C-alpha cells in the first residue's frame, strides 16, 4: 500500500466525517424548523380557540351616526391595550336612503373622520372592572365602545343592523341591532 493510497484513504474518511456532520446538521435543522412550525401553528390555533367575546347592549345614538356597544371578554385570553387596534369592527346597516352599507371601522380616539371606534369616555373605568390590569381587556371584563359613522351614512331609524367584532387572534362574534 503506497503513500498515495493512505492520503486518499484519509481524504475518504474526512469526506465521510464531514458528510455525517452535514447530514446530521441538515436533519437537525429540518427537525427544529418543523417542530417550531408545528408549535407556532398550534399556539396560534389555541389562542384563537381560547379567545372569545360577546356583544351586548347595542344602542344607536339619537343622531343615528353613533353606536354604543358593550363587548365582554368571555374567553381566556387577555387583550392588552396595545392590541385594541387589531380588533376589527364591521358594521352593516341600512342608511337613510335605504341602501345597505358595510363599513370596516378602525380604532382611533382622536381622529374625527368617519368609520372609527374607541372606548366610551363616559364610562369609568373602561374596561370594567379595573381591579387588575386597568388598561387591558382581561377575561370577564367588559369594554364599552363607541362607533362613529360618517355624517352621510346615517342609520335608518327602525332598520336592522349587524355588528361583527373580530378579535386579534381571529375569532369573531356578531349581533344584530335595531337602528
Amino acid at each position, binding site marked *: 500500500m*503506497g*503513500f*498515495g*493510497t493512505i*492520503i*486518499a484513504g484519509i*481524504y*475518504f474518511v*474526512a*469526506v465521510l466525517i*464531514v*458528510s455525517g456532520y*452535514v447530514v446530521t*446538521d*441538515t436533519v437537525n*435543522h*429540518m427537525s427544529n*424548523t*418543523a417542530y*417550531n*412550525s*408545528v408549535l*407556532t*401553528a398550534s399556539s*396560534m390555533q389555541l389562542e*384563537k380557540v381560547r379567545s372569545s367575546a360577546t356583544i351586548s347592549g347595542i344602542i344607536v345614538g339619537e343622531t343615528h351616526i353613533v353606536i354604543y356597544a358593550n363587548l365582554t371578554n368571555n374567553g381566556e385570553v387577555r387583550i392588552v391595550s396595545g*392590541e385594541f*387596534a*387589531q380588533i*376589527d369592527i*364591521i358594521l*352593516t346597516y341600512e342608511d337613510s336612503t335605504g341602501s345597505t*352599507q*358595510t*363599513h*370596516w371601522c*378602525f*380604532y382611533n380616539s382622536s381622529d374625527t373622520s368617519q368609520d372609527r371606534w374607541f372606548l366610551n369616555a363616559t364610562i369609568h373605568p373602561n374596561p370594567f372592572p379595573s381591579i387588575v390590569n386597568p388598561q387591558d381587556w382581561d377575561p370577564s371584563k367588559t369594554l364599552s365602545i363607541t362607533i362613529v359613522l360618517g355624517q352621510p351614512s346615517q342609520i335608518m331609524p327602525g332598520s336592522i343592523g349587524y355588528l*361583527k367584532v*373580530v378579535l*386579534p*387572534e*381571529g375569532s*369573531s362574534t356578531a349581533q344584530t341591532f335595531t337602528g
Partner: protein
Amino acid sequence: MIATIIAASVFTGAALSELYMFENTFKEIGTKNQQVYESSITIIGEAQASTPTRIVVWVKNVGTTSFPISGANSDPQYWDVFVTFPSGNVTKFSYSATGCGSPTECFSVALLNDIGSTGMWVTGETIQLTIYVNTVPTGSYQISLSLSNGVSAEDHFSF
C-alpha cells in the same frame, strides 16, 4: 502517488461542494415550509359598493408571517384572487396597485390598520381587498385568495 492525491482532492472537493449544496437546499426548504406553516389568513367580511362597481373584502393576518403590501417587492402582485359568481362563472382577477384601467376587472389592496406605518401586513392587521367588477348580481359568491407562499383563504357570501 501525486496523481492519487490530486484525484482524492478533486473527489473530496466535489463531494463537499455537493454536500453543502444539499444542506443549503434542505435548509431553504425547511425555512420555506416554516413560513408556510406559520402563515394564516382569514376572510372576515365582504361588502359591495358602487361607483365604481366593486366587491370589498376584508382579510385578517392571523399568522406570524409578514407580507410587504407596498413598494417594489410588494406581495399582492403575486396573489391569486378568484371569485365564483352566482352564475357559476369563475373569474381570476389581476393585481393593480393604482386601480383599474382596461380591462376594468382587477383588484387592489390597502392596509387598513398599519400599526407603526411599516407597509408590512403583520399579525393582527387587516387589509382591504377591493375587487373591481362590471356588475354585482344578486346571489351567492365564493372568494378564494392565495398569497405568494401558497397560503390561502376562502369564504362564501351573498348579496
